[in-house]
């Protein structure tokens, strides 16, 4: 019986390994009696639809049905991601439109002006520094994009949490990801207006987390060409390898 158990478990793990997952850590028990700490309080924040398996990049929700994602037949978070799982499809702005203005200030206290960056493509993202998951993942993609692109590009990050992201905090955070990245801030009303002009939004949410409030926000990366035209939107889960060719294309225009 034990041999059968081993064999079956081995097959199971072999399948996992063959699915592209490298087994790097295994079980190590400290005894069989669980010593549990108090459970975090769950406070539902709003009707939500889990982005189950968002790591395997579901397609962007169709316009008009925000929050609706295809159900995962395996349940939330289940299923082994296959190597080379589909990435979300970039959304071309057709026709390209003049990039909506960002009436916001830089961390140096100057009003941001797109005209100063004519001639350089811009990658624009809205996020906040207390976000440990989605934002650094997106900024990591931007960092990789800049490194691989081989063409000049300006990253602009707009905070959606101006209360906690002081100019100093914001710039220190951005300097970690890349040189010369611009951080923009302002009043919430100004920032929300800017986000909405790009089809985005954000709002504070009280989650009951020990970390304090979170900020729900749209997570798209906007590509603005060197003439100041908004040409493409990359949904969360897009890779640097998807953005780089588009960047090079417009850099050569």
């Amino acid at each position: 019986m034990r041999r059968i158990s081993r064999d079956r478990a081995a097959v199971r793990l072999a399948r996992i390994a063959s699915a592209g997952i490298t087994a790097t850590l295994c079980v190590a028990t400290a005894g069989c009696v669980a010593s549990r700490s108090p459970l975090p309080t769950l406070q539902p924040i709003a009707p939500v639809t889990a982005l189950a398996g968002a790591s395997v990049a579901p397609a962007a929700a169709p316009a008009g049905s925000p929050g609706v994602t295809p159900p995962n037949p395996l349940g939330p978070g289940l299923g082994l991601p296959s190597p080379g799982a589909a990435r979300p499809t970039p959304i071309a702005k057709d026709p390209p439109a003049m990039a909506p203005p960002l009436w916001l200030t830089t961390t140096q206290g100057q009003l941001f002006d797109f005209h100063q960056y004519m001639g350089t493509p811009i990658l624009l993202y809205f996020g906040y520094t207390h976000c440990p998951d989605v934002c650094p993942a997106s900024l990591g993609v931007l960092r990789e994009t800049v490194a691989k692109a081989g063409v000049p590009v300006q990253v602009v990050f707009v905070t959606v949490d101006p209360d906690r992201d002081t100019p100093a905090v914001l710039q220190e955070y951005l300097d970690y990801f890349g040189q010369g990245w611009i951080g923009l801030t302002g009043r919430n009303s100004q920032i929300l207006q800017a986000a909405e002009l790009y089809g985005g939004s954000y709002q504070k949410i009280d989650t009951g987390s020990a970390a304090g409030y979170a900020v729900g926000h749209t997570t798209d990366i906007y590509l603005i060409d060197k003439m100041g035209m908004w040409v493409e939107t990359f949904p969360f889960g897009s890779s640097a390898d998807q953005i780089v060719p588009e960047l090079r294309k417009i850099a050569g225009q």
Partner: protein
Amino acid sequence: MRSTLLRPAILATAAIVLGAACSSSGSSPAPSEMGPAGTLGPGGVISVTDAWARATPPGTTTSAVYMQLTNLTGSDDALVSVSTPAAGTAEIHEVSAVAPAPAESTGMGGGMASAAPAGSAGMGGPMMGMHPIEKLPLPAGGSVKLAPGSFHIMLIDVKDPLKDGATIEVTLTFEKAAPITLTVPVKMG
């Protein structure tokens, strides 16, 4: 950490042995249960792969830990809590779409303007927000991936900056299976 590759067969053997050990001291009355991975004790076994923690950018004291959890037993289990000496608090979080709500109902104040009118987006994805969950179900024979934009373990009040290349200890506590303490590598991510 990727250098410490363990062959699946070894993993399986370790898992079975630990599972058998737990069955003798478990408090569940059911002696055993036939599942996809064979006969295992009520303690059950969970395998953890590809664990990593995100390095903290300067000025920040939150981070996230990711991994793949596989329930090798024939009975459902759940990750119920996480602890680490590297942080004051660790919570199990889920990232999900956030339905726009009027500012008045958030109770947060702060001069927040109203949410975007429906249909104003026209393109792009929904708002995404994270929130703690009571537990992370691990169905029998199932595998759950904690990954950016999905489930993650959120570290709050990180005591010392997490530097790329360092490691932290993380203890996972389950509903049924015995706790697991891992050494998790820190990556820039």
